[in-house]
């Protein structure tokens, strides 16, 4: 397809894609390639420096930082992706129904969205986690609750835009079933916008989950998670500043990669550009 070709031609997008794929693969293979058990405490090796045995050194309990970073991909990145996927599915389903159906149902859903969107998202997440209790499941739930409305809004507006296109009107006129129209005509059009939104937002979700783990609301010890690793490193910020470097860089790279990929995708998929060709 045209898009794939454009994606490969765009250097930034290509690099970001490679980075993300590599990290995902590393995360999947973590149990096979991690040199140590990420939770193995060996207090005698605490704050061990970088060496041939421990490439990135050890943390305050003598756990191997490299192994923890690798396993951290699973909790940080995979959980963020999971959150993203659920949010998109829920958000776009509601958006599709709302935009396609219109009428009273649309009104109701949109006013609900207004309510959800009027709360600052961070505060809302903290409130939900506060009510449900700490733990990664609740953080994921909170993220979904806060974000779905935003997606529904976006998807709804593009659904409305495409619904007025002639080919959909014709399709309706000849009495094609709704499911057919939605799946064959609407979804492919909406999908491209969805992908951009999702990619751009994944960085935000990663940061969010890491931040909540950092303040102790998300992933619980001893699970390796980048935000949690940063939080533990913060306690020895002055004595062992090096402890903060690796989880910090890891978060930076992944979030930057997702954001830049999102930007590139937007450029590539921008319908205005396509017209000029």
């Amino acid at each position, binding site marked *: 397809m045209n898009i794939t070709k454009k994606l490969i031609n765009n250097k930034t997008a290509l690099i970001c894609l490679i980075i993300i794929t590599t990290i995902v693969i590393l995360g999947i293979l973590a149990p096979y390639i991690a040199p140590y058990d990420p*939770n*193995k*405490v060996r*207090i*005698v090796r*605490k*704050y061990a420096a970088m060496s041939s045995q421990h490439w990135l050194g050890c943390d*305050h*309990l*003598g756990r191997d930082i490299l192994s923890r970073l690798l396993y951290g991909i699973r909790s940080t990145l995979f959980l963020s992706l999971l959150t993203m996927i659920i949010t998109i599915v829920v958000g776009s389903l509601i958006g599709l129904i709302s935009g396609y159906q219109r009428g009273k149902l649309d009104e109701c859903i949109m006013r609900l969205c207004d309510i959800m969107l009027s709360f600052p998202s961070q505060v809302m997440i903290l409130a939900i986690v506060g009510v449900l209790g700490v733990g990664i499941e609740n953080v994921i739930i909170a993220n979904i609750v806060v974000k779905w409305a935003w997606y529904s809004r976006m998807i709804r507006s593009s659904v409305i835009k495409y619904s007025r296109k002639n080919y959909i009107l014709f399709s309706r006129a000849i009495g094609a079933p709704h499911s057919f129209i939605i799946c064959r005509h609407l979804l492919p059009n909406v999908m491209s916008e969805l992908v951009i939104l999702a990619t751009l937002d994944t960085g935000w979700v990663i940061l969010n989950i890491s931040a909540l783990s950092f303040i*102790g609301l998300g992933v*619980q*010890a*001893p699970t390796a998670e980048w935000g949690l690793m940063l939080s533990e490193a*913060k*306690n*020895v*910020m*002055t*004595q*062992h500043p090096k402890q903060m470097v690796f989880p910090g860089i890891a978060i930076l790279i992944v979030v930057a990669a997702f954001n830049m990929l999102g930007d590139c995708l937007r450029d590539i998929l921008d319908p205005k550009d396509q017209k000029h060709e």
Partner: protein
Amino acid sequence: MSFNFPHLKKLFIFLMLSCFSFNCLAKDDITFANFRDIRDLNPHLYSGEMWAQNMLYESLVHYNEDGTFSPWLAESWTITNEGKTYTFKLRKDVTFSDGAKFDAHSAKLNWDAVLSNKVRHTWLEMVRLITEVKAVDDYTLEVNLSEPYYPFMIEIAVTRPMRFISPNSMIDGETKNGVKSYIGTGPYVLGDHKKDQYAVFNANPTYWGTKPLLKKVTMKVIADNQSRLMALEKGEIDLIYGKNMVDADSFERFSSMDKFQTLMSKPVSSRIVLMNTTRNQLSDVNVRQAIEHIISKKDISEGIFNNSEAPADTLMATNIPYANIGLKPYVYDTKLAETLLDKAGWLKVKGEDYRQKDGKPFEITLYYDSNTASQKTIAQYMQDEFEQVGLKLNIHGEEEQGYRDRQKAGDFDMVFDISWGTPYDPQSFLSGMKLPVYGDYMAQQGLKEKPQIDASISKALISTDEKERQDLFRYVLETLHNQAVYIPLTYERNRAIAVKSLKGIEFAPSQFDIPFEKMHF
């Protein structure tokens, strides 16, 4: 235009002199960091910071390091009527900082106020035993007890609740419903106070005793361990003082810095983990003993505290009165622990990560106070030790108040705790186990010996026979040890980090006090 040189010269000399004189004048104020606000400094209640109460209020007698007492607000005292009557001769030159006179009448008002709130002081056996407080004349105070009670002098010496607040601060002659102001007889008076930010203590200009050299003590609230250390390094504060205020690694780093001095007290109290014997999985003594065997105190002492805190073998260190009773410590032995767990019915099952009994995996939670410098690290260490023998330990950090409430309610499997340290150990610490005010009471409910433990503690406190008292305390400590209710970890020390120019930093007999009156620059 020309410069007026003579004037410039004068100005220059003046500047030189002023710099010089500023250097000459010793600094007489200090700023230090505390992890929380001073809160309610009512001397007859327990919700204020003790070091602050100790600055404002004074007792009749002073408890010394060696276990003796020296005069404070009382010049002398006699004990008559077989240890049931105490008569104190009070100092005549003492006034509260609001000008009110301190005499036998105001002392009686204070103690009556404490006695009228008996429910709150149930840990203090003495409050139950006092029958009458009498002002014989203006400067003679007489206290009658229903039974001879050996820790009486210690309990009136400690920071709370038997210290004195100005009668003008009381509300209708009572203190249990709060006080109007925090006025005492002590070397300092409370100045400016902004909740959760800072509190200023000024030297009391009308203080009867030796006036402190530091004229102003400012406390800044800095909750985070690292922020405190950075504030000290940047010169924002002069002193960090306290047990949980600094972790061992940072302490070591500061001790190697030229600008700072680090001090450590003798061991003051036991750092312990309390196991709840009422919980299903911990109700079996074999399980509790197994847990005792899988914790390597030596590793904790070396790895986490860099040897600054000695490993603890027993709940009470052997130098604590009545505690040198030759208990056999639980040694680090995972093999033995596994045997005990097998015996208790927690078996390793193929394909399962954790030991199972009746088809359920072993899983318990350890709660810690997230504001402390080392509890989380110890918890994480223990988590791994548990893992090795197939037990699951969750760890859960909480804010201090939540953590205290949880202890009190007995809503825990395991929780970090401390003994109270001198001069409270063992009598007050054990006395506190008898009532549902601390986690100990709830945690011990699963023991069939609990009624006898409580009875023995009560009896020991009013016993006049030294040997009987020793036997009773031996029974209590031995039972708690053999039943493995407490996991002793290390013997804690008080720590201080200060700028080098601060002199006279000492550690008081009580781990909760900070002797500012001895500090100077």
